[in-house]
Structures are given as C-alpha cells and as structure tokens.
C-alpha cells in the first residue's frame, strides 16, 4: 500500500510513524525548509496534556479524545528510537488573593462539565507547598491529578527519526496545491497513491473538506525561560481575571510560559504586551523566575474550525483531519487511531466528530 500525506506537522509525523510501522510506503509533503523548520504549530505548543482544564473552552468530545490519548502516548513513545519525556503527575490551577471571582468562573465551569472523579481538587496551602515548594503568592490552588505533559520538541524530532528509519520519504519545500481521492498535486507534478491524508492545519486554507467550513489561524505566543535551580514538577495554570497563563517545566532547566490567543494570522514575533502580561503573571507565582533568562520566544498559528473542535472526514482514497486548535498534543493519538481504523476497516466518517454543536454540556 502507498500513502501520501500533505502536512508534516504533529499529525503528519504521527501518521507517518504508524503507517510505516505497518509496512506502508509513505510519502510526506510539506512547504517547510526541512525536518527541523518550525512552521507547524506542534513545535510551538507547550505540550500540556490537560483534558480536564481544557474543558473550559472545549467539549466532551475533546475530553474523551484527550483521555484516550493520555493512555496512548506511552505506547506510542515506546516505539520510537529516541527517548521522549512524558509525565503524568497532574497539573495545578492557581489563583491570587483578590482573584477569587476569576478563579470561580473557571472552576465552576470545570465542575459542571467534568464528571465528579475528574473534578478539580482544592488544595490547602500545606498540600500545595508539599507538591510545589517553589510556588508563592497564589493561595488558591486545585489539583487535576490525571493530567500530564509531553516534550513537544523531543517528540517531533523522535517521530521524524523513527519515520525516516522506517523508510518514509520526505518531500520538503513542497507545498501541496490540490488534493483529491488517491491523488495529490504539487507545483511540479501529480502524485498517485492508494490513500491520501490532508493534515495541513492552517495550510489547508479553503480546502478543508466537504463541510465547507474554513480553517483559520489563531495566533499564539510563548516564551522559554532558562531557570536553573527553579524547581517546578508539573504544569500549572494561573486563573487570572484578564490573562490565561500557563507554566510548563521542560528538560534542561527550561520553563515554557504561554500563551496568548489572538484572532489573527500574524506570524510576526511576540508583542511587548504579551511579553509583559505573560511573564509578569509567571513571575507573580514563581518569584524565583526573576533571574531566569529569556532564551527563546515563538509565535505560531493554531488551526481552528469555526466551532474550535477537531474534525475527521474520510471517503474513498482521502482522509482529512483538521481543527485541532489548541488541543493537538492532547488529542492527536486518538484522532490518528480513529482515522487509521477507518482506513483499515473501511468505516466512514467518525460519528463522534461530526456531532452538531451542543450548547450546554450535561
């Protein structure tokens, strides 16, 4: 079997790994300059695996995909040739004194949407101090024990290596202009395959499938702080009245701070406003960050459909997956599993992902 994949982001690489492992000949096309060029949103993401916290804006579909993916990631990573750091020590929600109202808006919503066993667990100051001694200044805290994180840069690199070793052929600097069943067109030629995957994210532009909904980019900005000696064991989110800020520890004494969410397709460098807001908020809960060094900042676009929910569309010879928005690492393994099940067993569009929008999660 021969498969063509348009888009070498998180989904493209994951699909390539899985398919190549099954003995499929895979050709992967992407406009990026090379395997380490960071055009895909997956590179930029902090890699929080937070099915519960994401219920603030996502729905139960994303939650279910997220829970399945949490179980799938360790199996997937075990098949790769390079180690990838993933951990599941839970995540924290924090709020400052005076911001109780802002915190309650989020926590109440999570309580309403999540089943009791997943509900945020309030922590006493002593319990918080035991979990994260470095935290100061935010007396309200909740633990989401099931949540975790993955090192996205390690994972992107490791997937590339393993896919290459399994014989995947990469076509860099090769944008796909048109896709149809079993057929994929680049600028210079038309390629024929048994099946074609469209996982271009924002790169899909107008061609997002039969549902006629356009994908749009939603700008996000993040920062890498080098902070030797600052110990943070697990991801945390600050429930602030104005900003959504998260801090994610990463190997190499790094702490990733994110992320803005702006309805714009501007890829230019991070703004002063986002820098001031996000980093001041991060410093307010982790005072030791004052002497951290700002070693990297990055902007990227999250691919979103109008309902901000993911979508799989499958027909003979063609599968389109898009709209992963801010949930790529959270849900990709389950989405890929569903798509491949459809491919092997011939079932059509995944009913789970075509459900019409429901306003009230009950």
């Amino acid at each position, binding site marked *: 079997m021969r498969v063509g994949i348009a888009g070498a982001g998180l989904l493209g690489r994951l699909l390539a790994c899985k398919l190549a492992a099954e003995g499929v000949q895979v050709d992967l096309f992407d406009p990026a300059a090379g395997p380490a060029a960071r055009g895909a949103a997956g590179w930029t993401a902090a890699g929080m695996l937070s099915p519960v916290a994401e219920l603030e804006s996502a729905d139960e579909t994303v939650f279910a995909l997220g829970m399945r993916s949490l179980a799938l990631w360790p199996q997937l990573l075990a098949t790769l040739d390079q180690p990838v750091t993933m951990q599941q020590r839970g995540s924290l929600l924090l709020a400052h004194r005076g911001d109780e109202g802002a915190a309650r*808006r989020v926590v109440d919503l999570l309580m309403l949407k999540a089943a009791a066993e997943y509900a945020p667990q309030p922590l006493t100051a002593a319990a918080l101090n035991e979990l994260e001694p470095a935290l100061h200044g935010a007396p309200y805290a909740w633990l989401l024990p099931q949540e975790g994180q993955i090192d996205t840069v390690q994972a992107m690199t490791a997937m590339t290596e393993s896919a290459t070793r399994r014989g995947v052929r990469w076509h860099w600097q090769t944008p796909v202009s048109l896709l149809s069943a079993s057929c994929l067109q680049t600028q210079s030629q038309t390629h024929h395959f048994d099946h074609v995957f469209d996982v271009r994210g924002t790169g899909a532009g107008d061609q997002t499938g039969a549902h006629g909904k356009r994908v749009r*980019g*939603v700008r996000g900005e993040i920062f890498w702080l080098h902070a030797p000696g600052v110990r943070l064991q697990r991801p945390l989110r600050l429930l602030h009245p104005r900003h959504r800020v998260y801090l994610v520890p990463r190997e190499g004494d790094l702490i990733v701070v994110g992320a803005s969410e702006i309805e*714009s397709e*501007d890829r230019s460098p991070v703004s002063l406003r986002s820098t001031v807001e996000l980093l001041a908020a991060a410093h307010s809960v982790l005072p030791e960050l004052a002497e951290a060094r700002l070693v990297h900042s990055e902007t990227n676009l999250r691919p*979103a459909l*109008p*309902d901000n929910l993911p979508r799989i569309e499958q027909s003979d010879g063609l599968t389109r997956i898009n709209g992963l928005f801010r949930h790529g690492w959270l849900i990709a393994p389950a989405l890929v599993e569903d798509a491949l099940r459809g491919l092997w067993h011939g079932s059509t569009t995944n009913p789970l992902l075509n459900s019409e929008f429901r*306003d*009230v999660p009950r």
Partner: protein
Amino acid sequence: MAFHIAGIELDSRFFLGTAQYPSPEVLQLAIKASGAQVVTVGLKRQLAQGDGTGSAANDFYSIIRDTGVRLLPNTAGCRAAREAVTLAHMARELFDTPWIKLEVVGDEYTLQPDPFELVKAATELVRAGFEVFPYCTDDLVTCQRLLDAGCRILMPWGAPIGSGQGLLNPHALRTLRARLPGVPLIIDAGIGSPRDAVQAMELGFDAVLLNSAVAQAHAPVQMAHAFKLGIEAGRLAFEAGIMAQQAMAVPTTPVTGRPFVL
C-alpha cells in the same frame, strides 16, 4: 419597539460584544439568540501586524458578518487619544463604517475611561466625520463635554468592564437620564445578570451593551436569549409606566363587607 441610533432604525435594544466566546460558532449562535443587530468588535490586537503594514485578521470577522449584523468597531486597549484616533481610521477603512465605539482607558486596574483623552479623541473623530459612541463613566459633566464635542450618543458604564457587578451607581445613571433627555444613552460594561439589564431599561436607558455576561456563561447561547427577554421586558415596563411604591398595602379586590376579614 423600534428606535433610532445615529439615523439607523433598530428593533433590538441589545448590543452584544464578540470577545471570549468558546468558539466563533458559539458566538454566531449567541448573536442569533440575542436578536442583536449591532455587535462590537475589538481591533487592536487582531489587526496588529509586526511589520506595521495592513492587517492579518483571520476569518473571525467574516464569520461575524455572516450573521448579517452591523459592526461597531471599538478602540479597546487604547490609552491615549492619538492611539484611538489612528485605530478608528483603520477600522473605518477595514469595515467601511463611520461608527466607532471610542474607548480610551485611563486606569489599568479598573479599565475606567480617561475623560480628558476621551473628549480629545471624540472631538477629533467627530470632525473627521465619525459617528462616535464614547464609552464613558456616569459623570454628568463628562457626558456634557462629550455632547459639546459633537457626540450624539453616550455609553456610560454600569460597573467596570467584565466585573459583572451590575449598576453600581443608579443615582448617577438616573441623573444622566433626567438631565439628558433625547440623547440616546446605552449602558455599557458591568452587566452581570439579566436583572441588571432589566434595571437599566427600567431607568429609561435606550439600550444595553454587554459581552462577558453572555460569553462567560456556562451556556452562552441560552444566556443571550435570557438577556434578550430581560431587555425587552425592561423596556416594555419603562414604556408602560411603573407604578410608584408606597408603604401601605392595597388589596386588589375590595374586602369591605366580607365576613371574617379584619
């Protein structure tokens, strides 16, 4: 129920903000459920482009436009008159409308309007042909200065933006209504529950603008509908004439002559 704002006839007295919804699709549904004919859109962060050229706006605005509503661009995030004026000109070009909701923030914590910069920006924009909807405090003199500057509509706050505290100073709002008859007054900011919107309408305000109370409700679409009903009820009550309160009970049916009633 029809009324006029800036020479345009509107049926709905509900103006809706478009930020913070779970998704553009939820926003679309909320706009429909609200019956709003005018929605405000933020620009400052959305239009900012690193190299200072043009606009990087994504599909968000066209999703809103698909609902058929009139857009009221705002200058949220501006802190100086000059900044707001520049943004207003960009908005006019981009959305092809002279309407501008003028916001010039004077204090970062309360996000309350800076009356001095506001009057300055309003003067300039009116001169440039804009229909200025100034977001102001409930201070009578500031409101009068804005009218002097040529504004034909005022948008006094109920409480700080996003706080959901309702109408914190009904006395000041009553004064505004009494002293500025004939000026369209739209309560903007601070509304938390439909109760607050009913109160604003009962006070005789012409319309209500809100965002967070709908966007951050657990079910935004349902809440948009709740506010629609509240705003309609409040307006009908105002027009119907609310009876004055009194201390003594008055039976609605005569009791004289009935046995066992003392």
